[in-house]
């Protein structure tokens, strides 16, 4: 560590070591301000807190000035001071008792204790000019800021903690230096590399300046890199409220602010409307069937069966139509929109949450297949003390990645189906330890045996994503065992569709690569247009989408992709559900809300027995890939940063240019500022004025590289500099050096009259040693010093 004692050698420090002086005072002020802000949650406006903090700070500074004036007089804080400090630390407890007796109000115990600690810090700060108190003052301030920052989440407190940490590190460096001082020899002296200490943070300034312009998720490019403490399943009745992001969330029993999904809540009954209203609001209602004689093109041997199934499904209202009217806009307030989360998802995104699978397509409408055969029995297994519903999952081709967990926090989802990602393995709801509470809704989609999922329920889900690179290496088994997964409606020109699919698939032979090529081409060729609707008279919206308009909603993309891939001989099906959009990730809560606008339609392709792989043909939507390893995460973080920089190229370029200019002209600009400050700075005493002048000159010299050594007095340094560079103004420099000696070392009673003359000497010196002049001297060759 390169360290130095610049302040100790400066006239302002007046002989104090680096860690002494104002640093303990500053640390205590920061700690006290943090505590006052932390107290705000207990009530009180910001301006009141600011006023209170200012008053306390002024008292501390005034006390410090009074006590520090004792320095050199022989007076020291005695035993009475210690008793006063103890009394001030204990004072809040009886005061609070009085307050409770008088007004039936008070503070919690931890606030009282920390308040006592605050008083102790205030007292110690006032007498911190003494060596024996400055260390304990800093340590007490550290504990105060730790306690204070632990009881609040105010962003301003974070800034103050950072400021405290920086000052604290500087203080510790000084302390370390003082412990070494006297044992180090001059040859090992090092200086703090200020240009790096200041310059490196400046490099991050453009990022800090531009990050607020970016979307919130860009600012958090490293989610999951740092561990989160989460909840501890313990609540304190005296807690001041707040919702954590851990597994155990706080029920809103006493305080409405502690709202959140809970795992221990009992299930509630609800009579709210069906989930499908959500889809109708999003996509618009399908038009009433004008023709009743429509049929799907199934092979003759399946015709009767299919008709029966279709009739059954229609009766239940479970079809998904690709022909829809535009939704009528609803008058909603801004608050309605922002508070319309259906559920929250904790876990990696993007994620597709399936609610309904559609297997049959008649050219306009999709229909689900009725579950055939005896579905596998759902079993509950206790893992640890938690009941987990095991969902059978086959993976004969070893294409699935390792399991990963998600949490669904149901807010306002009116369905009994559990939104689940592809590759579902298990479901856990706290306290639900009966398997008969669950049932199959469709293949690989589980529902609860009740009308709808209870609000504020936390559902844990385990699933496995698909390793795409593994799919490229294996031969896909095209048939799902159900012929309708490959059926193309008669209303659609199969030959035309197949030609298009083959042309998009390319000449390759790898099945998965051909599939990806078709999907990628669809994403490139067609445009997502949420407002575009095919005419109601159109009998074949897919053909119209693929060959004419090439724009449409996500269900058109999904349907078109499904048919294109079917024409290549693959088994596909349509899936509706929710898309957990990573763009909506809320860094603060570490959750991603799912709102009504997140309903989505995509398709799945049959890759192996029991394995359906999600495909995403809609532009702007992505599929969750297996969890990246550390190296991939690094690359992703770099890529995210690079995209961010690329997106804000001009802003970054402008900032960098400004920074470069500021860096290049830093000395000139700073010199103007501090010279102006020197002119305007009030200095009632002449000695102060001399000190200020010397500070200004030293700063100018530092900028050009003439730094005063710690063991050199100002006068000797000035004279040697003038001598080395053969300055002609020796008379002025001589006079000023004597003046500086007088100001620094002469007894207080030794004054000079008239003082205006001294100020005149200072002015002459400042005018003589201008920054430009010093720079000019720097470029000249200095006269080598002869050893004295």
């Amino acid at each position, binding site marked *: 560590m390169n360290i130095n*004692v610049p302040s*100790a*050698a400066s006239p302002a420090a*007046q*002989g104090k070591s680096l860690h002494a002086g104002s640093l303990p005072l500053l640390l205590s002020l920061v700690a006290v301000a943090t505590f006052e802000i932390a107290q705000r949650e207990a009530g009180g406006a910001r301006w009141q807190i600011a006023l209170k903090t200012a008053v306390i700070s002024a008292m501390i500074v005034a006390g410090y000035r009074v006590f520090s004036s004792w320095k*050199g007089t022989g007076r020291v804080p005695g035993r009475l001071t210690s008793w006063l400090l103890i009394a001030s630390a204990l004072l809040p407890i009886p005061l609070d008792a009085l307050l409770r007796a008088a007004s039936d109000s008070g503070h919690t115990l931890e606030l009282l204790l920390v308040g006592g600690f605050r008083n102790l810090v205030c007292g110690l700060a006032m007498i911190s000019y003494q060596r024996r108190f400055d260390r304990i003052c800093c340590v007490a301030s550290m504990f105060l800021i730790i306690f204070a920052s632990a009881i609040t989440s105010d962003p301003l407190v974070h800034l103050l903690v950072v400021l405290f940490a920086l000052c604290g590190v500087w203080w510790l460096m000084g302390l370390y230096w003082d412990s070494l*001082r*006297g*044992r*180090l*020899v*001059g*040859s090992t*002296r090092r200086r703090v590399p200020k240009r790096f200490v200041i310059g490196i943070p400046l490099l991050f300034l453009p990022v800090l300046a531009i990050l607020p312009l970016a979307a919130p998720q860009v600012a958090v490019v490293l989610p999951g890199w740092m561990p989160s403490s989460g909840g501890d399943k313990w609540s304190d009745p005296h807690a001041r409220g707040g919702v954590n992001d851990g597994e155990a969330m706080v029920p809103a029993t006493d305080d409405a602010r502690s709202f959140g999904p809970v795992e221990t809540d009992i299930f509630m009954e609800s009579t709210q409307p069906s989930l499908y209203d959500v889809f109708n609001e999003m996509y618009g209602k399908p038009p009433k069937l004008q023709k009743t004689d429509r049929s799907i093109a199934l092979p003759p041997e399946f015709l009767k069966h299919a008709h029966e199934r279709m009739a059954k499904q229609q009766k239940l209202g479970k079809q998904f139509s690709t022909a829809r009217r535009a939704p009528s806009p609803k008058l909603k307030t801004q608050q309605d929109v922002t508070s319309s989360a259906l559920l929250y998802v904790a876990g990696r995104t993007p994620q597709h949450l399936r609610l309904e699978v559609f297997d049959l397509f008649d050219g306009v409408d999709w229909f689900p297949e009725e579950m055939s055969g005896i579905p596998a029995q759902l079993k509950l297994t206790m893992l640890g003390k938690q009941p987990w519903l095991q969902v059978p999952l086959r993976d004969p081709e070893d294409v699935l990645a390792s399991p990963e967990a998600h949490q669904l926090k149901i807010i306002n989802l009116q369905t009994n189906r559990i939104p689940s990602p592809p590759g579902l393995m298990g479901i856990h709801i706290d306290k639900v330890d009966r398997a008969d509470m669950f049932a199959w809704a469709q293949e690989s989609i589980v529902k609860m045996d009740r009308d709808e999922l209870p609000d504020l329920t936390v559902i844990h889900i385990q699933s496995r994503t698909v390793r795409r690179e593994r799919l490229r290496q294996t031969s896909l088994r095209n048939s799902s065992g159900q012929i309708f997964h490959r059926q193309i409606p008669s209303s659609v020109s199969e030959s035309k569709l197949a030609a298009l699919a083959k042309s998009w698939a390319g000449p390759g032979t790898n099945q998965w690569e051909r599939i990806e090529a078709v999907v990628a081409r669809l994403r490139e060729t067609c445009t997502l247009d949420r407002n575009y609707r095919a005419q109601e008279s159109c009998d074949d919206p897919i053909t119209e989408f693929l060959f004419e308009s090439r724009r449409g909603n996500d269900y058109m993309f999904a349907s078109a992709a499904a048919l294109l891939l079917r024409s290549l001989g693959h088994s596909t099906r349509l899936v509706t559900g929710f898309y957990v959009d990573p763009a909506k990730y809320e860094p603060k809560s570490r959750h991603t809300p799912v709102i009504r606008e997140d309903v989505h339609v995509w398709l799945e392709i049959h890759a192996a027995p029991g394995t359906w792989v999600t495909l995403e043909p809609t532009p702007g939507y992505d599929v969750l890939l297996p969890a990246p390893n550390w190296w991939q995460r690094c690359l992703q973080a770099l890529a995210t940063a690079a995209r961010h920089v690329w997106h804000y190229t001009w802003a970054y370029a402008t900032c960098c240019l400004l920074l470069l200019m500021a860096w290049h002209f830093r000395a000139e600009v700073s010199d103007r500022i501090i010279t102006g400050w020197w002119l305007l700075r009030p200095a009632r005493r002449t000695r102060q004025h001399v000190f200020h002048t010397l500070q200004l000159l030293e700063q100018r010299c530092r900028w050009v590289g003439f730094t005063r*050594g*710690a*063991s*050199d*007095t100002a*006068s*000797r340094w000035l004279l040697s500099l003038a001598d080395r560079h053969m300055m002609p103004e020796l008379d002025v420099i001589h*006079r000023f050096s*004597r*003046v500086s*000696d*007088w100001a*620094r*070392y*002469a*007894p207080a009673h*030794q*004054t*000079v*009259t*008239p003082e205006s*003359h001294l100020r005149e000497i200072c002015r002459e010196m400042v005018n003589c040693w201008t920054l430009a002049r010093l720079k000019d001297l720097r470029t000249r060759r200095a006269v080598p010093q002869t050893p004295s």
Partner: protein
Amino acid sequence: MMSIHTLPPVSSHARDLAGIDQVRVSLNGVLRGKPAVIENVLVCLLAQGHLLIEDRPGLGKTTLAKALADAVGGHFARVQCTPDLLPSDITGFSIFNQKAHEFEFRPGPVFSEVLLADEINRSTPRTQSALLEAMAERQVTVDGLRHPLSPQFFVIATQNPHEQHGTYPLPEAQLDRFAMKLSVGYPEPDDEIEMLAAAVASNSDNQPRLAILAPGQLLRLQESVRQLNVDRTVQDYLVRLAQATRGHPHISLGISPRGLLTWQRAAQAQAFLRSREFVTPDDIQDVALPVLSVRLGIEREHPASIIQELLQSISVP
């Protein structure tokens, strides 16, 4: 209050300083080309310390001592230290006066203003200690009777660093009685030419010089030096330097509190000579080498470099 024309920090003892200037000129005329040595001699004189000059023979040590004694207007005595020199040869002795039928005290050379103890390391430790007692306490005790010395008693002791055969090196405790140790060194060639030119047909060495300082003036100057202000921060700096000498790995014996007092007094004298009424860290640094080199147990051959390192390692207030 000072006036504008006497900008700080010019001393108010202008008349006394004029006398010192004359002494300085006189000594510079005797010992050519050695102003730094002269300056340190004056510092030592004003600080009421004693001076140890360690150098080869013939470099002007005796001439300097005699010139100084003439300048301050006191009685000069010289002792050539040899192994057979007795303490009474320095302090004096009592003889029986047959007429008066009583013992009569015959004062030795210590009863002078300026005493030159030449080659002090050739005398026995017993004799050395007798002299050093006189230097420390400015009194001698003979036959149970205490005899005070002159208040401006000033010892210039010399020793030859190169001839160690048959010598009794001064122990550290006795070296601590000296305020400074100086080395005159050979003069520059130009100065030697001037010296030779001045010596042609000149018999000035045998001519007694007139006293420059008036009787009692040296005491007043020394009192003025004692009165000079030393800021608390400067004293703190001095203490930090002292602590550094005690913790330095190459210094076996750090400075003692008595040495610290001497260092402060020497710095006061240095400030006085620079017409200042207060001491600055520069004064402390400037007298550090002669003050420390006489009393620090430095384990290296070049104590100056160690002392310089010490000074650079401690920041000034």
